[in-house]
Structures are given as C-alpha cells and as structure tokens.
C-alpha cells in the first residue's frame, strides 16, 4: 500500500538517535524488591493514600483514591507490605509516596477481573472502567484519560486519533509496542472509539518507522473504519494539535482543545494499557520505557513496574558507562532533567535518557543575530526571539500580546537557534507570570 505522508507547517529535524534501541525487543525488567509509588503521577489533583504502614497489598490493588474529577486512582504494582507513606522525590517534584516492600509472591488482587465482551459494555461503563483503572496519558504529559473521553454535551466527537508518531529523538518504546503488540493498540483504539461513540479512528505514525507502519497496516486490514496515517518525520509531529492537523486537516483553535474540533487524541501506549484493562482487568501498574543515551552501557526497551527506582532500572541496562551529565525523564526535547537517579518510575515515564558530560553540556548563549529561524520553525507561528526578549526584560504584558501563552513548549526554537539562546526557558517564565496575573485578576 502506498500512503502519502502528511504533516504540519514549521518544525525541525533533530537527529533521531533511535538506532541504539529501535531493534531491541521489549523485555520485562526484573521484579523490584521495593517500589515507591507517588500519589501524584498525572496532571490534576493528587490522590489520597488509602493504605497505611503494615498493610498487606496485592498486585493491582488500589492504594490511592482519586477525589477530584481531574485525577486518576493509583494501584500497587507488586504484592507485599506497605513500609511507609511519606513525602519523597519523584520525577515531577516532591510528592507523597507509598513505599511497598515485595514479598515475592506477585499475588494478584481479587478485584482484577476481565471485563468481558466489549459488545456488552456501555459507553458509560467503558469510561468508568478506564477511570477506575487509573489510565492516564502515557506519552508524557499524563492527563487522566477519562476526562478526555467525557466532552461536554454540546461537543460532538467525530474521530479518535492515536498518536504513534514518537517524534522525540532517542525514544523507541511506542515503536516497539506497535511492532510487537499491534493487536493491543487496535483493540484499545476500538474501546476508545466506542467510549466516545465515533466510527472513525486514525493511527498516526512517522515515516521513519516503516516496519511499524507495515505491521499496523496489517493489523487494521480487516477494520474498515480504522486508518493508519503516515506522518512526515518532523518534530513536534506528535504534538496533539499538529497531529490532528496532519491527520484530519482540522485546526484546533488557539487556546482551544482537540474536542473543539471533534477529535480525541490518545497515545498508542495508552490504547495498549486500555486493552490490558479490558482483557485481563489489570489496572495501569506498568509501562514500556526506553532506557538509552550516551552514558548507558546497554540501552534497552523495558516493561517497568510503576514505582521501580530509576537506579535499579539503569543497573539492569549495564549501569553507567561514563560519568553522568544529565538524567532526563522522557526525550531530549521535552523531557524533565532530574537531580538524582533515586526517583521512581511513574505512569508517564516514556524513557530514561542518560547523557554523558559532553552531550549534557549546552553551549554558551550568544547575542541574537535576528536570523529569523525561530520564527520560521515555530509550529504555533510565534516569534520566540521577541517573546523571550520581552520576558527577560520583565515585560510580561507585552509578551502576552505576542501570544506567549500559546507556546506548546516544544523547544524547537531553542534547538534551532544558532546563537544558542535559551528561548523556551525565557518564554516559560513569561507564561508563568501571565497565567499568575490572569489568576490574580480572576
């Protein structure tokens, strides 16, 4: 089948760095002896721990209750005893965590039951099953999935788009997932389509993964209402709004949400997790992540239980082969740099990227030469040179006029700048100030 590659306007072509792991099959990480499970792993309200030290827990047992709508419950990834409930470092900052010591039995909680035939489950039930299973976006941002599936009644949804672009350099977890478990992705997509009552689903994949495109094409060959969309390899192709634009031609309004144009976007990993929930009943307690980078001895794609410390995982990848310059959760463009490796894996850990000193050292910024490249490539059509300049001068009201808050923080501008200016860093400051001011105004 020949498929035309679609894309969006703007964007950059960073080196892929995917060779190290793209042909390495997914393996299971070793069973952790201790997990540290944060009660905040998603965007939204943190969970309340419902276990206390000394409690016995089983695999898949709920240990954190979501009290708000924009929140998702949290489950134990192992069987064992709760050691303590205390604040600890997590990849996204300090949070209350439940420390569980494994008893080695991996006994599964009674509540974990297959959900039966999809035919016999209603929309509402699907959404509540997804919510109860603690499913959150697995592409990185970690937005609770059931919220996306519950549009206000005045919005009609026409399409579900699955994001298999994996446009971040280095990461190959989604790529491997599509190659090894295409059926899970397709089943998850069908669940999602039923949940929002649509008859058309897309799976977007960048054309640097021809094997994944072929596999997914095969997997959907008997599904008349699911289409694989081949995307041009370009960063940030996997950004929601860029993806919708490429796949459906629709443009999400500035400041709007995908549902405003009748689209729901989910990551392929999220779809596979949803498949697991319906087939086995197991809530989201583990995920696939790519462990890679210049300082990792043996880069791998691993299934990791939530709560497993980074350090343990890195040891299973041969440990550090060079002095560590930087540890990043996620990819190099949008990932979060970490202060230590003593932090747990969370639902949104798509990768653990460890760079050596040389890769981690950023060049000294020079004066802006007004080359216009940042303007040319910004996928949102902003003028990063102007917004960052205004931000550095503290002129946040002016920055707001230049639409600073529309920045999707993709980092393309900082990447491309020949003067190596930390553009996004300055724009983030402006965004924060503007939003704080808006809140203050009420």
């Amino acid at each position, binding site marked *: 089948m020949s498929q035309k590659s679609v894309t969006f306007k703007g964007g950059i072509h960073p080196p892929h760095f995917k060779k190290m792991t793209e042909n390495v099959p997914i393996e299971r990480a070793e069973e952790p002896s201790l997990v540290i499970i944060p009660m905040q792993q998603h965007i939204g309200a943190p969970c309340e721990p419902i276990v206390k030290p000394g409690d016995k827990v089983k695999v898949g047992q709920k240990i954190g209750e979501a009290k708000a709508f924009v929140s998702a419950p949290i489950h134990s990834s192992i069987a064992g005893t709760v050691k303590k409930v205390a604040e600890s470092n997590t990849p996204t900052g300090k949070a209350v965590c439940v420390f569980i010591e494994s008893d080695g039995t991996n006994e599964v909680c009674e509540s974990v039951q297959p959900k039966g035939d999809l035919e016999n489950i209603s929309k509402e039930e699907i959404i509540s099953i997804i919510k109860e299973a603690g499913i959150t976006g697995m592409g990185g941002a970690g937005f609770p999935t059931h919220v996306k599936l519950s549009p206000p009644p005045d919005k009609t949804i026409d399409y579900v788009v699955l994001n298999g672009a994996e446009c971040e350099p280095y990461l190959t977890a989604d790529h491997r997932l599509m190659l090894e478990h295409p059926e899970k992705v397709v089943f998850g997509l069908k669940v999602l389509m039923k949940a929002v009552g649509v008859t058309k689903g897309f799976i977007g994949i960048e054309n640097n993964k021809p094997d994944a495109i072929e596999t997914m094409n095969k997997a959907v060959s008997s599904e008349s209402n699911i289409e694989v969309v081949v995307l041009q390899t370009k960063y940030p192709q996997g950004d929601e709004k860029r993806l919708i634009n490429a796949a459906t031609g629709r443009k999400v309004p500035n400041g*709007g949400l995908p549902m405003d144009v009748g689209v729901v976007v989910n990551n392929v990993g999220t779809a596979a997790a949803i498949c697991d929930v319906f087939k086995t009943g197991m809530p989201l307690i583990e995920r696939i992540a790519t462990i890679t980078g210049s300082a990792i001895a043996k880069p791998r794609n691993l299934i990791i239980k939530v709560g497993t410390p980074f350090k343990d995982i890195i040891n299973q990848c041969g440990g550090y082969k060079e002095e560590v310059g930087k540890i990043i959760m996620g990819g190099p463009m949008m990932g979060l740099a970490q202060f230590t490796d003593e932090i747990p894996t969370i639902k949104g850990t798509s990768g653990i990227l460890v760079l050596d000193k040389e890769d981690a050292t950023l*060049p000294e910024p020079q004066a802006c030469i007004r080359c216009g490249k940042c303007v040319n490539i910004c996928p949102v059509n902003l003028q990063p040179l102007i917004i960052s300049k205004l931000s550095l001068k503290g002129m946040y009201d002016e920055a707001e006029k230049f639409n600073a808050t529309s920045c999707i923080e993709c980092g393309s501008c900082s990447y491309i700048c020949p003067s190596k200016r930390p553009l*996004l860093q300055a724009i983030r400051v402006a965004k924060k100030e503007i939003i704080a001011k808006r809140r203050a105004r009420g």
Partner: protein
Amino acid sequence: MEKLLIGSSSPHLRSNETIQSIMLDVLIALLPATIAGVYFFRFNAVKLIVLAIASAVATEYIIQKLTKKPVTIRDLSAVVTGLLLAFNIPASAPWWIPVIGSAFAIAIVKQAFGGLGHNFMNPALGARAMLLASWPVIMTNWVTPGPDAVSTATPLAIMKGAEATNEALPSLTNMFIGNIGGCIGETSAALLILGGLYLLYKKVINWRIPVVYIGTVAVLTFILDGGFTGMSYHLFAGGLMIGAFYMATDYASSPVTPKGQLIFAFGCGLLTSIIRLYGGYPEGVSYSILLMNVATPIIDKFTSPKVFGEVKRNG
C-alpha cells in the same frame, strides 16, 4: 547518587549550527565569485579583498577591546562584511578605499548600534553608500577585466546612456560569466547564483528574499524595459544577484517574519527597478536595500504571523 545533578530546562538538545558555521557557509558560498574576481581583475582584486577583510576584523577587535566587550572576531561575521565590501568596490580603487570602508562598516554601522544582530542596515552596503557619496569618481571608475584594465562603463550605464560612451553592450554570455566591467565581486552572475543556491541548500537563507526580489525585478523590467533581452541585462548585470542573495538577506537588517520578508523583497525589487529605469543612476540595488533596511522594523511590526488556529486577531 552522592552529588546532585544539574536540572536544566528542556530542550536538552541543540543543533550544530552556530553563528560561526553560518558565516563560514557564507564565505564558502562567496568563494567561487571571489576566485572569479581575482581571475578577472588580478592582483588589484587580491589586494583590495585582503585589505577590506583585514580592516574589518582589526576594527572589530580594536573596538571590542576598547569597550571591554567580549571579542567576537572568531564568529567570522567581520570577515564576511569585509569580503562583501570588497565585492562592492571597483578593482581600480586605491588601497585606502577598502580600509576606510571596512572600518566604517564595522565601527559605525555595526558596533555603534550594538554589534551583530543590532545593525539596522547592512554594514557593507552602508559603507559602500558612504564611499560612493564621498569619492564618487573613484567608486565608479570601472575597468575591463584582464591585465590591461582600461576604463570602461558598466553594462547598465551603457543601457542607460548615463555616461557619454560609444561602447557596445557586452554579450549576455560574457555578462553571465562575469567577463564585464563592474565591481570586483558583482560581475559573475553565474557564480553568485551558484553560491546562493548553496546557501539555500544549507538553509542559511530561505527562498523568500532572493526569489521575490529577483522575480520582481524580472517582471518589472520585462514589461517596462525591452522584454526578454532587457530583462536579462537587468538580472545579470550590476549588483542584483549579490544584492538579492547576500546583502538583502542580511539577518539583522531584514525582517524576521515570513510575510515581512516577502514585503521587504518586493520593496527592494520595486525600488531597484524604479531607480534603474527612471532614476538618475544606473545602479539601484544598494540604495533599494538600504531604504528597505530602514523600513524593516515597521514591516516586522505589522506582519506578526497569525498564531496557529487563531480565529480573530487579538480577539
């Protein structure tokens, strides 16, 4: 981990492109035309090019030392300015012309306004305009290519009949390869285009300014000055190619917005055609670009790109 790592803000990846690599690409692009200039105008060209570059770099170094700013001569931007200025003077000029010109370009046009990125006009063009105003005879004393270097008129001057001359127009082929009277670097259209294509390929410049600038001149001169032949002379004679590919694309003095670049380039083309066809002066490229340089901040201001998915401007 005993020692805490540094948690810097994303992205954690930077492109390999630097100011220095960009300037090096410009120099590479200008190399064929430089060699042609040396071939056509012999030792005079070598002398003037070396002096212009040396003066530009020395001026930058001295000023940055005096003002206690970091010395940035290694970014090669002064070398580019010096070379471009040399391209814009006739091969018969005395040694002090490039020295004064480069010093002016760097000291006044570039550094006095805050250095690279802050110059509101192209330094080499600013210096050329100054030289032309101060020493008009020297700056228009064109010589024929080759060892004899007798005085001649430029093709555009012949076309215009601006100078009392009974010379015939050179053939289009000679003009295309650069075997004609003119400034050191502006004569060989073919090699300048070649270098321009290299810059486009390396993404140092984008297509908007050169294509729209040259296109505008092509259309206007085709209609207003003798159809295809007239148009060809206007395109390949004089400073259009060097102006469109290397001067008008100067980062600091041209707009950063895509729409602004289109307007800027159209303005350059329009002014160049008007000056050449109706003005009292056979060349028009330098002044057109300089005028549009001055308009750049305004153009940028009114051409802010429409934000992705923006429904109503500032709504």
